[in-house]
């Protein structure tokens, strides 16, 4: 498990600035509806890596879900 840190940090969540009170990715995810996939700073984060992923100030986090496409 990644080291937990109780602090406030600011990241870019789906393109919007957001302040978090935890640096654990897994703490942030329950607000999103399944299915979703995650990219951190433009790189894919596999689901089995969520518990080990620590966020840092200024990170860009993208959480995506299925939509229509051509």
């Amino acid at each position: 498990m990644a080291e937990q840190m109780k602090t406030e940090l600011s990241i870019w969540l789906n393109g919007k600035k957001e302040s978090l009170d935890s640096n654990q990715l897994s703490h942030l995810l329950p607000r999103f509806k399944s299915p979703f996939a995650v990219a951190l700073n433009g790189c894919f984060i596999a689901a089995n890596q969520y518990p080990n992923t620590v966020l840092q100030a200024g990170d860009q986090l993208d959480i995506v879900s299925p939509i229509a496409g051509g």
Partner: protein
Amino acid sequence: MHSDFNIYGTQLNSRLILGSALYPSPALMQQALQQSGCEAVTLSLRRQAPEQQGGEQFWQLIRELKLQLLPNTAGCHSVQQAVTLAQMSREIFQTNWIKLELIGDDYNLQPEPMLLLQAAEHLLADGFEVLPYCTDDLVLCKRLYELGCKVLMPWAAPIGSGLGVLNPYALRTLRERLPDATLIVDAGLGVPSHACQVMEMGFDGVLLNSAVALAKDPVLMALAFSQAVAAGRSAFLAGAMPKQDFASPSTPVLGMPFWLQEAL
């Protein structure tokens, strides 16, 4: 009837692949997909907006159809973007298929050929089954095929234009020069005759979205396209007659009344 059409080994009975976007309503999308008889559908990923509930309904409807899912990397402008989106797609949709789109020009959404090759190489090495959306350029298509893309998806015209086949020579050349590649014409078709035309050329399939979704009656247009694709395929297999520049009567001349064999 046995079909010899397959995408990376997955056999499909319908040679028509439809997109899931731009329909007047999710219900009409579902009806059009069903009416077309297609067995594969394209879809994509975008940032989740919890305040928007439409995404959930879309996903539910798509899953009910039990079609093969062909996720795309629409909107990507870099190799990194395309690779990351492909990896996220594979995790969500549980498929190695990826319709690789890498845009090089925002006006006509023309694929970026150099980056397309780089991204395709990367994704193939990562175990993806890559279906690159590409132009009809022979050399680009040859390079993609040599890399290991067994399925290529050249455009007929820019995405959403409905212009039909802008360069029949280029498409015919692709078919002739890459006889073993699975070639699916993707983008730019507007009416069923366009689809029939490329199927008559010997293309293996057709992928389209706007032409059905933006029709006045998408469900009926989906049926029309499926019939056109089937007709074009049958015509290709049947083999067209040779063209000639002069008339040749089809009704026998022998026995024609009103004329005499000898001059009076």
